[in-house]
């Protein structure tokens, strides 16, 4: 080997190393590969805990077979969906499942197709659930199903404390029941008031139950809802840990059997059935059921360069929203009347939750759309502020309203 070739080799080697380095980086920057085969469609969902053997994955596979395509499913955390979708702008999936209050944000960013563009028929979907995906008369997605919040109770604790659940009709009677439970040596109620969207979600039934309006956070109605929670905490009717509880940890608290009541979601129904817990709709301030917020994801069809893909994507979405297979797999109430009826026929104890979902309203309703995100952030900050004793409920809400403007 002579010197020039050796040197040349070294130069080539060093350049190759740099090229490899650049190449690896370039490879890193493209998160997922575009489906090449015409028959492969990508679907993103926020259910990483549901693996290939889950009923949800099976429902997806069944639809793939029915439509005659291959569906490549990618699951990531809910919190990351918006970020993932925006940063994947040039490489969007064919179908993306998005938490319903985020639909308006993504639609506003110009990421989603309307039903007019993708040709999907939404006439059979329940109006109140669907409205979370509607902005200015355009529909950007279809719900997989809906869940909502209710008031679970532990019959053993209540009967020991001498509380008749039929007497719980409004806030005053609920507070009385909590006092009786605490007097009997148990704990009152647990919920989640954590400083995230979950906190706002859990507060909304009380907020709306006081007839407060999300566009006026500092109203006296809003104050009375936040004061209810704050007084429960001060009076020892609710534990201080609710300030940090997620809905999951709150449910864990309730499952200890020490609590009389728990505000939590319909997704815990089967768990509650096993433990012998029952549920009612959350009462409004002056009686009657309070409207609870709807939860659950929307199936959206993000913008594609190849618009001919929409037709097939719409077929996949239609398959997943039809009947109750997908909704039942996810523990949701089906988005169509037919689907909900089928679920009720299979399990009559679902009646309460189906009624609750019928009474529920989406967080982005009242044409709040993209504004909801900012309002919610201020709302849960106000909740944190009042419950931790940083500010009085009315001051906290005034600060929140000022920050929204």
């Amino acid at each position, binding site marked *: *080997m*002579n*010197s*020039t070739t*050796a*040197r040349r080799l*070294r*130069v080539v080697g*060093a*350049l190759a*190393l*740099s090229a490899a*380095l*650049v190449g690896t*980086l370039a490879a890193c920057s493209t998160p997922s590969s575009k489906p090449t085969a015409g028959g492969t469609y990508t679907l993103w969902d926020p259910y990483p805990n549901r693996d290939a053997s889950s009923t949800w994955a099976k429902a997806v596979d069944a639809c793939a077979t029915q439509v005659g395509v291959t569906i490549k499913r990618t699951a990531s955390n809910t919190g990351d969906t*918006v*970020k993932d979708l*925006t*940063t994947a*702008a040039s490489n969007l999936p064919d179908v993306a499942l998005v938490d319903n*209050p985020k639909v308006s*944000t*993504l639609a*506003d*960013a*110009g*990421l989603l197709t309307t039903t007019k563009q993708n040709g999907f028929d939404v006439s059979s979907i329940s109006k109140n659930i669907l409205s979370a995906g509607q902005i200015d008369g355009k529909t950007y997605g279809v719900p997989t199903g809906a869940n909502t919040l209710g008031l679970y109770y532990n019959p053993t604790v209540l009967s020991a404390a001498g509380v008749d659940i039929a007497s719980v009709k409004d806030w005053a009677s609920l507070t009385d029941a909590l006092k009786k439970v605490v007097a009997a040596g148990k704990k009152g109620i647990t919920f989640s008031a*954590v*400083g*995230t*969207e979950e906190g706002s979600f859990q507060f909304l039934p009380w907020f709306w139950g006081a007839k407060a309006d999300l566009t006026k956070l500092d109203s006296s109605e809003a104050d009375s809802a936040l004061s209810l929670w704050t007084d429960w905490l001060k009076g020892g009717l609710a*534990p*201080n*840990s609710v*300030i*940090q509880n997620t809905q999951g940890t709150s449910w864990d*608290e309730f499952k200890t059997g020490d609590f009389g009541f728990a505000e939590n979601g319909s997704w815990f129904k089967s768990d509650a059935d096993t433990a012998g817990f029952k549920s009612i709709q959350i009462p409004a301030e002056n009686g009657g059921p309070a409207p609870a917020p709807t939860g659950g994801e929307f199936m959206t069809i993000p913008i594609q360069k190849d618009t001919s893909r929409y037709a097939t994507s719409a077929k996949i979405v239609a398959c997943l929203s039809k009947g109750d297979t997908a909704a039942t797999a996810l523990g949701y109430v089906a988005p169509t009347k037919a689907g909900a009826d089928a679920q009720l026929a299979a399990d009559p104890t679902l009646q309460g939750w189906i009624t609750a979902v019928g009474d529920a309203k989406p967080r982005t309703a009242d044409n709040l759309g*993209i504004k*909801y*995100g*900012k309002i*919610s*952030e201020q709302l849960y*900050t106000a909740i*944190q*502020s009042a*419950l*931790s*004793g*940083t500010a009085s409920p009315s001051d906290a809400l005034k600060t929140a309203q000022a920050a929204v403007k």
Partner: protein
Amino acid sequence: MTATQTTPGLPARGGTGGAASTGAVPPAAAARRPGARRPRRWRAQLTAWAFIAPVVIYLLVFYAYPLYRNVDLSLRAYTLRSFIDGTAPFVGLQNYVDVIQSSTFTPALINTAVFTGVSILFQFSIGMALAVFFFRNFRLAATLRALFLVPWLLPLLVSASVWAWMLNSESGVVNAVIEGLGLHQINWLTSPQWALVSVVIANIWIGIPFNLVILYSGLQGIPGDLYEAAALDGANGWQTFWRVTFPLLRPVSAITILLGLVYTLKVFDIIWIMTRGGPVDASTTFAIWSYRLGFGGESPQLSPAAAVGNLLIVVAFIFGLIYIRVQQRVVRS
């Protein structure tokens, strides 16, 4: 191998003509020498650049570009839409003005200062005390010292979660003890008075091993005869520490404290896991604030988040410069 003969002084070759050392070059190439000189110099340059290229590319891609992007991000008004259509209006220093005028700025500044200052103070003094204690080399000293390193070995996620459980208002072991003593429960993580205290306590616990290890190795560098001399002069333990150990440990101490400052300024995981910076802003530091603006809230505010991040970088950079200055002085002395 001929290659080794020709490598030394590559750039110098072109200049000296290198007739004597080109023995390995075939006669044909030597004959073309006047014309070959230029390409060879060029090739030597290329070789030099090719060797430097991996490092330069690494630095550009992983340091310069992200930093540039962060500055650029902070000078524009980025929204989610910006990622789609690529437009983000240039707003100059508006994001910085907004951040400084924000109601979170003052609490975050005070919290960052208190969090960093108090953490360093306790980490250093406890670390120092333990280092001196273990330097006596009593039985089981090595085992005990190893045990003190545990906080360092545990993933931060684990440590912070365990602290959060222990300090939980209702079911935490700390409150169980306090109530067992007949006192009233303390809402460690959920009251505005205690949240910062709680995260500082956890952070001190996590930082002690680092201080212990560095100060312990510093102690080993102090000559033993100085202690003997001090003992002969009749100095007691306290005097030995303040007159011998502490002054001789000063260079090591300075570096420990400055490194600790840079580490503590950017602490994020412990606070986020324990309190998420709350309640409200009670335990929000700059690092937490930046993350919360960008990713924690319901509407991502990436540009203000970048502005807060840059402020933090500037502060860390100043401490970094001081660190380099101090280190140079230590090397010189």
